[in-house]
């Protein structure tokens, strides 16, 4: 049985797995971004805390995905929820770090110019710092998304569904077709997400500084 045969016979199941996979990635990265962008901004205002938090997040990142999923399984049981929790945690670090670095690297003269001409702290953040850091933040989101696409295959192990299901089924039954039917689309998915987000990154980078960051 080739992959094409498999796809022809099981299109509905396959599409369902694919959609579930995309869903897991999208929700995890969105949660990650909602947590880490505000946190990253907060950390740029509290640099000493930042060192600690970034070091901690870095340590969490080194815990293997399987171990994390194991913990999640013990704590939250089987299903979508524990997978989303683990993947959201993983997606935080790249976005957090890029938000922090992106804003920290905005030249302090711009911030002072903003304050000096009478912007409130809020206006300095939204009119100066965030636009100038947009490219860096978006690149963090892109990295997170690509990672999450691959980590999400592990989520199949704890019953969250997605392309991981096909891979695990294939692995446990020595069925090459199943493995490829799960692995190839998830690799393609990573490329597609990366490309789309790269495009979005370019659009969100303010025109006047595109040359430098492209």
């Amino acid at each position, binding site marked *: 049985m080739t992959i094409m045969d498999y796809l022809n016979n099981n299109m509905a199941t396959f599409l369902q797995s694919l959609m579930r996979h995309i869903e897991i990635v999208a929700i995890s990265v969105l949660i990650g971004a909602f947590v880490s962008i505000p946190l990253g901004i907060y950390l740029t205002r509290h640099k000493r805390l930042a060192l600690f938090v970034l070091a901690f997040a870095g340590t969490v990142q080194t815990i293997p995905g399987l171990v994390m999923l194991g913990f999640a399984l013990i704590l939250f049981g089987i299903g979508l929820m524990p997978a989303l929790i683990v993947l959201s945690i993983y997606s935080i670090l790249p976005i957090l770090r890029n938000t922090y670095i992106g804003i920290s690297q905005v*030249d302090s*003269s*711009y911030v*002072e*110019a*903003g*304050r*000096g*001409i*009478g*912007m*409130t702290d809020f*206006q300095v953040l939204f*009119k*100066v710092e965030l*636009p*100038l850091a947009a490219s860096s933040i978006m690149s963090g989101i892109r990295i997170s998304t690509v990672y999450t696409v691959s980590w999400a295959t592990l989520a199949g192990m704890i019953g969250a569904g997605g392309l991981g299901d096909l891979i695990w089924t294939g692995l446990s039954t020595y069925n090459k077709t199943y493995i490829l039917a799960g692995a190839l689309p998830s690799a393609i998915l990573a490329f597609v997400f990366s490309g789309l987000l790269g495009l979005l990154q370019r659009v969100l980078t*303010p*025109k*006047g*500084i595109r*040359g*430098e960051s492209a």
Partner: protein
Amino acid sequence: MIHFQNVTKRYGEKIVLKNLNLEIRKGEFVVLIGPSGCGKTTTLKMINRLIEPDSGRIFINGEDASKQNAVELRRKIGYVIQQIGLFPNMTVEQNIAIVPKLLKYPKEEWQSIVRSLLKLVDMPYEDYAHKYPSELSGGQQQRIGVLRALAVSPPIVLMDEPFGALDPITRDSLQEEVRRIQKKLKKTIVFVTHDMGEALRMADTIVFMNEGRIVQKAAPEEMLRNPADSIISTFMGRHITSGRQSVPLYAEDFMRTKVLKVPKTSKTLECIELMSRRDVNSLIVIEDDETYFGTVTIEEIKQHGKAGRNISELVSNETITIGRKEDARTALDRLLESAANYLIVLNDDLTVAGIVTRTSTAKALGEALWGEMPA
């Protein structure tokens, strides 16, 4: 207009300002100058409360600055910093319109402000309003920086080494422009620099600071004639003149550096067009490697020039040239002897440094004698 009363500022152990008292009058152009770390920038930033004093008070228009809302205060005070102050993510128009927008001016109003300000510095709205700072030269960026500070016509404008990063020629013309704008709009300007030449050219009053104190506050002429302290004399370097010692002057001290140069491959018509646009009757012609080639006059082109031909065939090399380090006296003698009304000053590598004219000589002599001269 601005009044410092016993202002002191410390950073940890280090005292940056010691019991500073300073009065700045309405419409006055005050330059704060001194060695780095003397407290001049701190003083400036206290006016718009980017830095708060530890003790003492600052009054603006009779009102205690610390009792006003800092953000609102800053919107009423123009602020120009070094080149980098323009926001790279905003166009020229957006940069200039920031403060009017913060103050919720209606769109028609801030648009007309942008137009009229750009007109003030000869940068047509159509050509520049929608460009980003990265598309402008350093001098143009800083012009926009100045305009941004003027957008809501604040009575006070603070300038923190605004021209420090510019080349000398651009700096010269911006200094003239700011001086002209200040005269026209009657602003109170507080200007920080470490360049004595700039201070002498621009200031009504120079405030010389050192180690957190004001060493001397005086008009430029007065400071040149009677520096209160040896550190001021050192700082003024070649600008200082006293009856006893005369500073050697070179041709370069007499020259004007803003000159029109064209490559020898230029066409006759474009030269004529350039001359009429800039209102001059001769041009300096240079080789491809920028070394001096000769001069060409408008009469020469009109009599012998043919449309579309290179000007190289019309160039005369009769104009007298002189090295920039030659004695100023020699330069003056040769200028007076010569039939032409200018000399070409050459750098060591034979590129053109500038020209000496009777006007530039008179101006340089005047500056040597009395300090600042009107442009």
